[in-house]
């Protein structure tokens, strides 16, 4: 479709597409796979195999008594929770505010939920190195089987909710796939679509279910990140009672969730041929949220730092040293630069936000930052020899990863991405029903000397 210009501004092509074109584009990946997709899947599979071997050779063979051997398992778990775990929260937020620009983006944020099986498996392995709550700092107050049972309940509920949220949102598109794809390829969609016919009742169910599952997903995500931050990081560092830290970790996660979505948008636009769906409008709006979360990242770090700095008790000085100033100082600097300074100095400019490269590059930097920050946090918490002290007396040296650790992390991360890639064979992207609804709800009209868009608001 040709790009028209009125008053020197490019008009979004997405909303001019015919609905039949949207159906074809949405089903294209289900019907067949391109070379790029197959190559990425192959790389992910190799990574997964390498990761599993490194996992067995490394932490499993070391056993659960050596907590430090599990550092990079925890780091991988943390990175996955912060990125693919939080991306569906981004989708929920976009649905709540009901913007129209989000329509091609929602599915891309939700599809990451498919990969949540990987952090869930890692979580169950990590439970083995977690001490029980007797004699140490904890917020479980001696509840039975704490923290194992309650952390597990939270994580399992989160993963199930994530799958449910994705499924409910994709159900109408699976019905379209059922009706459009002939032969065996369409068979699985007959089962998955569960007789969806698009009646008013069907749509009301979808709407309600998305609302409830989305809200629960966000609540469970926040709860899970709170218990992970508490049990896997703070509880293992003597004297650490920073009440803001769970919120800080959750906000980092949300920032990374937006980043992984924007990064994926760039990949899908340039390699997936979806430039008509993922235009400047989508990057511009998502970049504003990226910037806002970057500022919140700084705010939560600053509030923690300044209270410890003003207090300056020996306990707080030790915490400042271990997390900020001594063994992981350069990691903190890199994380700070990529997660706060880069969104601030790149995305603060409107012209940059209105482009595509700026937000995409920033999202890549944020993803680097979240990896580095998780390395900093888990390396610190998994290095302390005695967690039962009231405060840190000596600052443990920085943990330097071995080859096994790096292979494990890279492998498992690649494997998780591969699981998400497999999701594109079952879940149409872009979201056919949402994008089509957006097309119907937008009308161009002449208004005085200019042209405007009327956006329908049926809710």
């Amino acid at each position, binding site marked *: 479709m040709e790009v028209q210009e009125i008053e020197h501004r490019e008009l979004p092509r997405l909303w001019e597409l015919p609905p039949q074109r949207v159906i074809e584009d949405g089903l294209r990946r289900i019907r067949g796979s391109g070379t790029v997709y197959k190559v990425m899947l192959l790389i992910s599979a190799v990574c997964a195999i390498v990761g599993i071997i490194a996992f067995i050779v490394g932490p499993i063979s070391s056993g659960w008594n050596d907590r430090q051997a599990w550092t990079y398992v925890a780091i991988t778990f943390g990175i996955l929770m912060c990125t693919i775990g939080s991306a569906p929260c981004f989708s929920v937020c976009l649905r709540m505010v009901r913007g129209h620009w989000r329509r091609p983006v929602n599915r891309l944020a939700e599809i990451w939920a498919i990969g949540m099986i990987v952090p869930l498996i890692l979580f169950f392995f990590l439970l083995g190195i977690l001490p029980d709550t007797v004699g140490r700092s904890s917020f479980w107050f001696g509840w039975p089987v704490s923290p194992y049972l309650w952390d597990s309940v939270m994580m399992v509920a989160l993963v199930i909710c994530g799958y449910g949220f994705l499924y409910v949102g994709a159900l109408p598109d699976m019905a379209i796939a059922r009706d459009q794809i002939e032969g065996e390829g369409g068979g699985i969609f007959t089962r998955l679509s569960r007789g969806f016919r698009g009646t008013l009742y069907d749509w009301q169910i979808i709407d309600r279910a998305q609302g409830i599952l989305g809200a629960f997903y966000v609540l469970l995500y*926040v709860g899970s990140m709170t218990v992970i931050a508490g049990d896997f990081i703070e509880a293992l560092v003597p004297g650490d009672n920073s*009440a*803001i830290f769970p919120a800080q970790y959750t906000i980092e996660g949300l920032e990374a969730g937006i980043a992984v979505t924007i990064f994926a948008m760039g990949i899908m636009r340039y390699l997936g041929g979806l430039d008509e769906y993922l235009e400047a409008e989508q990057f511009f709006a998502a970049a504003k949220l990226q910037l806002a979360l970057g500022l919140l990242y700084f705010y939560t770090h600053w*509030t923690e730092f300044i209270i*410890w700095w003003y207090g300056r008790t020996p306990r707080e000085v030790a915490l400042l040293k271990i997390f900020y100033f001594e063994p992981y100082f350069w990691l903190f600097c890199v994380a700070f630069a990529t997660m706060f300074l880069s969104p601030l100095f790149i995305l603060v400019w409107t012209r940059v936000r209105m482009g595509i490269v700026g937000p995409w590059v920033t999202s890549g930097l944020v993803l680097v930052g979240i990896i580095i920050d998780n390395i900093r946090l888990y390396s610190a918490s998994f290095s302390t020899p005695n967690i039962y002290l009231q405060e840190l007396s000596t600052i443990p040296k920085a943990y330097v990863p071995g080859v096994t650790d790096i292979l494990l992390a890279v492998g498992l991360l690649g494997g998780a991405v591969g699981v998400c890639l497999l999701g594109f064979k079952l879940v149409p992207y872009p979201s056919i029903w949402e994008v089509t609804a957006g097309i119907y709800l937008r*009308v161009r009209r002449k208004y005085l000397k200019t042209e405007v868009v*009327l956006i329908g*608001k*049926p809710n």
Partner: protein
Amino acid sequence: MLERHSHSTEQIIEDLLRPVTQTTTMNWVAFIVLGGVLSAWVFAIGWMFYWGTGVLGLNRQNIWGILIVNFVFWIGISHAGVMISAILRLSQAEWRRPVTRAAEVMTMFSLMTAMTLPFIHTGRPWRTAYWVFPYDFWRGIWPDVRSALVMDPSAVFTYLSGTIMFVYVTMIPDFALLRDRSIGWRHALYRVLALGFKGSERQWKIQTISGFILAAIMLSIFVSVHSIVSWDFAFSLDPVWHSTVWAPYFVIGAVHSGVSAVVTLMALMRWMFKFDDYIREEHFDAIGRLLVVVGSTWMWFFLLDVFFDLWRQDPTDDAIMRMRFFEWPYTLLLGFIFIFGYFIPVPIWLFRRFRRNIKVMFWTSILVNIGMWSERYWLVMPGLQRKFQWTFDWVPYRPGPVDITIVLGTFALVGFLLLVFAKLFPPVPVWDELEGQRFAGEIQVGKRSVPAIIREF
């Protein structure tokens, strides 16, 4: 926005200027009642100035009482204006239109009211003047500029001046409208305030851009103000005060109470000024949904603060937490916090039919602010009461009649100022409503006609 009735321009102007042009019986009753309470407030302050701060319930351990709790409360209420006005203006949410001015003006008056409290609580504020100015090191006084108590006035004054500018800029078109429709002293007043605004394209462009820029600036200021207020407490090493979560916790609590106060104000404006066509159920529905998110976030931070006060199992912290949970009056206040602040209003707001019920929204918003005032007391006072380990100093704080009169008087002050404002200036932005009417439209989707909003590309 979408349920709006289609009125002519003249009808909209007449309706929205009704509070300025007419004074109803309810107005007079409100003026008299609030004026009476204000008089008691002035008397109580004068009594305190004459007899000293001994007339308050303060004692050696409890050097701050409900005056400082009230200060924190009003700073919190002031956050509503920026939350609603700046954020919704930047995100171009249509439902903000009738709400922004009332929220911004409430911010202004809440801030002014809050600032009276640290001023009068010194007992002899005239002495404050001559030791504060010149505030430098020439006289051998070395104020600790790192103290949050020094940062606080800077932050609050910056916030107040920014808010005044923000309110002023967004009111200029309405000043111009009033200038063209008034005579006598009002005409002179509005002419000065309107700054020659004629509604040209350039003037509208400058006014709009100024509003956006000020909104963006105000957002950073609003976060910093209540963070610094929280650091008045958290920077010290007092047990249960010294917590890393207090800054965002105070900010989100401020938003929770402030936005609830805006709901109260919306309902009162609708009833007093007959703004049924302008402050509609859909506005309460939208703000109710916002409050569910804000309230839940606040509850998360509240729980983080409580859990991490108990985290280290420190004997001092544990003793204070036991006092907070199980001793009078903190047990009662905790009940208010949980029940009024969250467990009654938020479940109610989950249901659309209750969000669209003005009476329900009004009363739940009042409950929230009862809960939030209790929360400030519950946060501040226990740390002071058990600050030191000498048990002979553990005297309970009992606010006296002077304390209570001053606190009640602040509510009357804000209400009175809002009423006076509504007599001079339209409480709902006329130009914003007219613009909203222009931007409203309809599109045909199949057989259905769907409400729509105009947006530029």
